[in-house]
């Protein structure tokens, strides 16, 4: 049962929210500790992250490399900008596909929510075209069309 939402905001933002049945400290750790990141931030089944650099301090480096084990792969680099332990991470990232995408500025917050955590990830792209391109990145499988969903995501 998914509790995730993905919406656009204004021309340059993408907002993702998700509830987790774990305290903010744990969800926060899972976002910055390499041995934890490597267990979940993998995209489609079959992909792994053999390289995971995460240096969680202002100015600290981020580098994630993914592979499908069959010769395909891509990577992401970034830098941490601000960290408030267990409640907020601000970082910037760009994908190399292999050309770099424009910087995606990401603020992730973790708030106590019932017995768990509400994570809110707010991405800010340099302009609306970049956001449009980002939303189109890496997606290939279709699902049933829904005007309602379109209206609440793309058109909101």
């Amino acid at each position, binding site marked *: 049962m998914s509790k*995730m939402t993905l919406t656009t905001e204004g021309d340059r933002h993408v907002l993702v929210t998700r509830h*987790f049945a774990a305290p903010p400290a*744990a969800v926060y750790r*899972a976002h910055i500790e390499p041995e934890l990141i490597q267990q*979940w931030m993998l995209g489609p089944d079959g992909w792994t992250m053999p390289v995971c650099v995460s240096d969680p301090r202002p100015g600290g480096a981020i580098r994630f490399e993914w592979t499908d084990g069959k010769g395909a792969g891509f990577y992401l680099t970034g830098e941490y900008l601000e960290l408030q332990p267990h409640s907020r991470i601000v970082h910037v990232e760009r994908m190399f596909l292999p050309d770099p995408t424009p910087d995606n500025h990401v603020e992730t917050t973790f708030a106590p929510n019932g017995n768990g955590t509400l994570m809110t990830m707010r991405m800010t792209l340099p302009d609306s075209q970049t956001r449009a391109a980002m939303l189109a990145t890496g*997606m290939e499988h279709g699902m049933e069309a829904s005007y309602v*969903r379109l209206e609440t995501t793309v058109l909101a």
Partner: protein
Amino acid sequence: MKRLRPPSLDHAFAALADPTRRAILSRLTRGEATVMQLAQPFSMTQPAISRHLKVLEHAGLIVRRAEGTKRHCRLAQHGIAAVDQWLSTLRAALETNYNRLDQVLAAMPAEPPKHIERNKQR
């Protein structure tokens, strides 16, 4: 009925980057409309609206048809579906990640116990 070629997603997303065009599409999700009806909520001339409609049509997001002197617009199901598919897949990729994260979190050692009252009557 005319069969449409698959539209370019680049064109579609470029067309969606404009707030007026998103508003036009939003209106069209409620059904077909004439150019005049579409122009009404905006403080824009009909030619200005027509330019936006042309972009949307070129991007494969709407279909226009003439009926007498009136021009009607409606969503192009094919183009809208293509855009929606991209979004659905991004959503699916994130959901896959977060479902995995649920399991990672479940396997993490619990935090030091807090004062939580538990009803253990059985």
